[in-house]
C-alpha cells in the first residue's frame, strides 16, 4: 500500500450524499492498496454525473461518449498491451445500457480492464428518467407511478459473457477491497456499485433504504465470479510482407492481335467460375502484351444469382474501365441472360456467344449458339466460353490462355484439353 494521491483533494463535483463520492474515494484507496502510481492508470469516463469526476483524478484521463467508454477503454487496453497499466472505466447505468454490447464484448474477449458501473437506477443528468436498470416499483420524476419491469442484472449478464471477475457492492462505506480485487484481476472485471440518486431517487422514493431496495429487486450483493483466466492478446503479425509481390506481374510472351480496344462481357451464374474466367481472359491478354481491366458485377447474395464480369483489352492504357455496350458477350446461364439482356439489346454489332439452353435475346449482334453447359458442365461453362471466344476472335494466341490456365491450380482437377477443342 502507498500514500500516493490519485485525487486532487478538491471537493468532488457531486450532490451532497451522492454515492459517486464513495466510488471515487474507494477507487483511490484500492489503487493505493495495490501500490499503483497515478500514471499507471488510465481512467476512461463516460457521460453522466459520474463522468465529470475525471477532473479530480491525477491519472491519465479520457472522457468519451455516452455508453462507449468500455469500447474506448478496450481499444486503449489492447493498444497498450501492457500488464503494468491499469485501465479503469467509470460508467453509469445509462451508459451501461447504451453500451451493453461493449460490455458483453469486453467480457467475452477478456480485455484487461475494470468497469465500475455507478448504478443509481436512473438518468441523473437529464432529469431522473428511468433506465433499463430501474427496478420494479422504483419511482422517478418522469415515472411517478413506479417502474413495472425489473432492471438488468448486469452482474449475471457479465457472468454469462465470461468476465474474469464480477462483483456487486452496495456503495456505502469502505468497498475498496472489492475494487482492489477487480483491479488486480487480469482480464475483464466489473464491479457494480449500487447507489441511490440523492436528487431524484431519494425524493421520488422517500424513506427507501438502498440495501433493502437492492434486496427486494433480487440483486445479490456478492462476488459472482473471480480468477477466471481469459485475457485478450493483441494480435501481432510479426512478419507482414509487402502486398506488391512480383508474382502479380505478367511478363509478355505472346503478341495481341486486336486493332482497337475490345470490350468483353461474361454473364453467367454465381459459382460457375465467371470471375475466374474473366481474370484468365485479362491475364492472357497481358501475357500477350496488352493492357487489360476486369470489373465484376454481382448481387449481394453469395453463391446464387447472376455473376458477370466486364473485361477490356487494349494496346493502350485503359482509362475508363466501364463498358456499357460490349463488343463481345458470352452468356452461359439463365441468370446470366437475365442480367445481360439490357447489354445485348444495346449491341448494334459484335458477337454474342450464348448457351444452347437459352433463348436468343433481342440484339443487333451476331449470335452464336454453343452447348457450353452440356459440353463441360455448368461449373466450367464460363471458362469454356472464354476459350471459345479467344479461339474464334483471335484476340491473341490460344497458348496465352492455356498458359494462364495451366498456372492456376484449377488445371490440377480440370483438363485444359476439354477447352482447347473448339
Amino acid at each position, binding site marked *: 500500500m502507498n500514500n500516493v494521491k490519485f485525487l486532487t483533494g478538491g471537493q468532488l463535483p457531486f450532490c451532497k450524499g451522492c454515492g459517486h463520492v464513495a466510488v471515487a474515494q474507494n477507487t483511490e484507496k484500492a489503487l493505493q492498496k495495490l501500490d499503483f502510481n497515478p500514471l499507471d492508470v488510465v481512467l476512461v469516463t463516460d457521460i453522466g454525473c459520474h463522468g465529470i469526476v475525471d477532473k479530480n483524478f491525477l491519472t*491519465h*484521463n479520457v472522457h468519451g*461518449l455516452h455508453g*462507449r467508454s468500455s469500447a474506448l477503454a478496450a*481499444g486503449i487496453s489492447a493498444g497498450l498491451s501492457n500488464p503494468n497499466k491499469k485501465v479503469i472505466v467509470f460508467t453509469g447505468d445509462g451508459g451501461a445500457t447504451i453500451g451493453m454490447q*461493449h460490455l458483453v*464484448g469486453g467480457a467475452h474477449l477478456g480485455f484487461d480492464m475494470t468497469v465500475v458501473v455507478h448504478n443509481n437506477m436512473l438518468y441523473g443528468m437529464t432529469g431522473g428518467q428511468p433506465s433499463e436498470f430501474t427496478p420494479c416499483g422504483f419511482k422517478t420524476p418522469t415515472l411517478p407511478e413506479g417502474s413495472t419491469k425489473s432492471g438488468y442484472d448486469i452482474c449475471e449478464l457479465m457472468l454469462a459473457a465470461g468476465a474474469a471477475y464480477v462483483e456487486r457492492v452496495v456503495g456505502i462505506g469502505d468497498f475498496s477491497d472489492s475494487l482492489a480485487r477487480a483491479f488486480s484481476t487480469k482480464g475483464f472485471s466489473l464491479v457494480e456499485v449500487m447507489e441511490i440518486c440523492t436528487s431524484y431517487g431519494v425524493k421520488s422514493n422517500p424513506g427507501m433504504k438502498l440495501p433493502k431496495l437492492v434486496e427486494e429487486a433480487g440483486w445479490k450483493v456478492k462476488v459472482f465470479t473471480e480468477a477466471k483466466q481469459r485475457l485478450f492478446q493483441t494480435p501481432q503479425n510479426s512478419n507482414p510482407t509487402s502486398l*506488391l509481390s512480383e508474382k502479380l506481374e505478367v511478363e509478355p510472351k505472346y503478341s495481341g492481335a486486336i486493332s482497337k480496344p475490345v470490350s468483353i462481357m461474361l454473364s453467367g451464374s454465381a459459382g460457375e467460375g465467371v470471375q475466374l474466367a474473366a481474370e484468365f481472359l485479362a491475364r492472357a491478354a497481358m501475357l500477350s502484351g496488352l493492357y487489360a481491366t476486369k470489373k465484376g458485377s454481382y448481387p449481394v447474395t453469395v453463391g446464387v444469382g447472376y455473376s458477370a464480369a466486364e473485361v477490356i483489352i487494349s494496346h493502350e492504357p*485503359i482509362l475508363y474501365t466501364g463498358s456499357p455496350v460490349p463488343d463481345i458477350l458470352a452468356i452461359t446461364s439463365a441468370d446470366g441472360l437475365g442480367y445481360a439482356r439490357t447489354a445485348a439489346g444495346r449491341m448494334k454489332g459484335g458477337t454474342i456467344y450464348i448457351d444452347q439452353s437459352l433463348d436468343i435475346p433481342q440484339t443487333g449482334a451476331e449470335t452464336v449458339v454453343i452447348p457450353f453447359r452440356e459440353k463441360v458442365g455448368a461449373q466450367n461453362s464460363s471458362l469454356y466460353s472464354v476459350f471459345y471466344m479467344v479461339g474464334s476472335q483471335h484476340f491473341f494466341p490460344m497458348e496465352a490462355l492455356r498458359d494462364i490456365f495451366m498456372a492456376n491450380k484449377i488445371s490440377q482437377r480440370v483438363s485444359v484439353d476439354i477447352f482447347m477443342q473448339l
Partner: protein
Amino acid sequence: MHPGKTSLAFIDGSRLITESLVRAGADTFIGYPITPANLLYLYATKRYPTMLAAPDEITTLQWMSGFAIAGHVPVTATSFPGYALMLESINMAAMFELPMVIVLVQRLGPATGTATCGAQGDLSLVHGTLSGGYTLPTFSPSNLNDCWDISAKALHTAIRLRTPVVLLTSKEMVMTLQAFDWSHLAEIETLKVKTFSGSDTYIPYKVDESLVPDFMPVSQNNHAVRLTASTHDTKGFLQNSTPEAIENTKRLEAKVTKHLQEYLLFDLDEQAGAQHLVVSYGISAQASREAVRQLRARGEKVSLLVAKTLLPVSRDYVDIANRYERVVVVEENLTGQLRQLLFGAAGRNGLSGVNAIARMISPSEIVDEVMRKF
C-alpha cells in the same frame, strides 16, 4: 507491347491503398466487414502489424481511438452504413485530435442501397460529419497511381494534423483489376506522430503556430494525458463555453485550413484557348480523362481539373473554374455534390453537371455535355 515496360501488374486499388497506408505509418487496422470494402479488410489481415475484427462500426471507431490514444496510427475501411454508425465516434476522435484514416468505399444508397454497386454519393455526408461546420480532411484517389500517392498523403495528413482523415473512394476503384505499371511508384516516407519532448508540464491541447498540439500516448508515465470529447480548455478539462475552450474548438478548423496548401492535390490539365472545363474526382475522373482525350482528338479545346483533395473545399478550384465560360462537373450521384460544394445553390452561369446513379458515367455522356449548346 507496353512501351518501355515488359511487365505489368494485375491489381486492384485496395492492394495499393493498403500497402501505401502501412508504408506511410499506419500500424493497426480495425474493421467490421462490409461490401464493397471487403478487399481492404482481407489485405489488412496480411499486411498490418495488428489487425482486429470489431463486432460493429461504433466499436471499430472506439477501438481505433483507443489504439490512437495508446500511440498507434489506426485505419479502417467501411461503406455508408458503417460510416453512419461511426459518426459520433468520428466527432469524438476529432475532438481528441487523434490521427487515423477512414477509407470510405462508396456504394449505391440511400440506406443499405445496393452493396455491390459503386457510387459517389457520400461527399456531402463527409462534409457534414463534424457538428458545427468543422472539416475532416478528405482525399479521393482518381486512379491506381493515386491509390498509392493519395493514400500516403491521407495518412501523413492525419499524423501531421492529428485528425481523422477520410479517404473517399468507391467500389470500382478498389475492386476492379487493372493492368498497372508500378515501376514508377514513389518511395513513401514512414511518419510518426510528433510527441511532446519538453521538460515542463505537458498541456495536452497547447499549440504553437502550427496549431497542432504535441501528442503524448498514455503508455508513458512522465506526463498526465487528459483527452476530452466535450468542449474543453487547453488542459483538457471539460468546460461549458469559456472563451479559451471555444477558441480551442475553433482551432480544430483553423489547423485544418491553415495547412491546406501542404496537402492540396489536384491534376490540372489546361489547354490554351479552351473555354470548357471538365471537373471531376474519384472513379468518374477516369471517364473524364477519356472524354477529354476524345474531345481533343476531334479538335475540341477543353481543360480538365481532377480534384484529389476534396475537403476542405479549396478556393483554388473555384478560381480555376472561373477562368472558363463553361464548367461541367462529373460525379456519380443524383444532384452534384461537388458542384454544390464549389458553387452553392446559386450556381453560376455556364455551370452544369453530368450525373448518374447505379452505373458508371461513360466518356460519351461527358463529351455530349461539353458539346451541348448551353
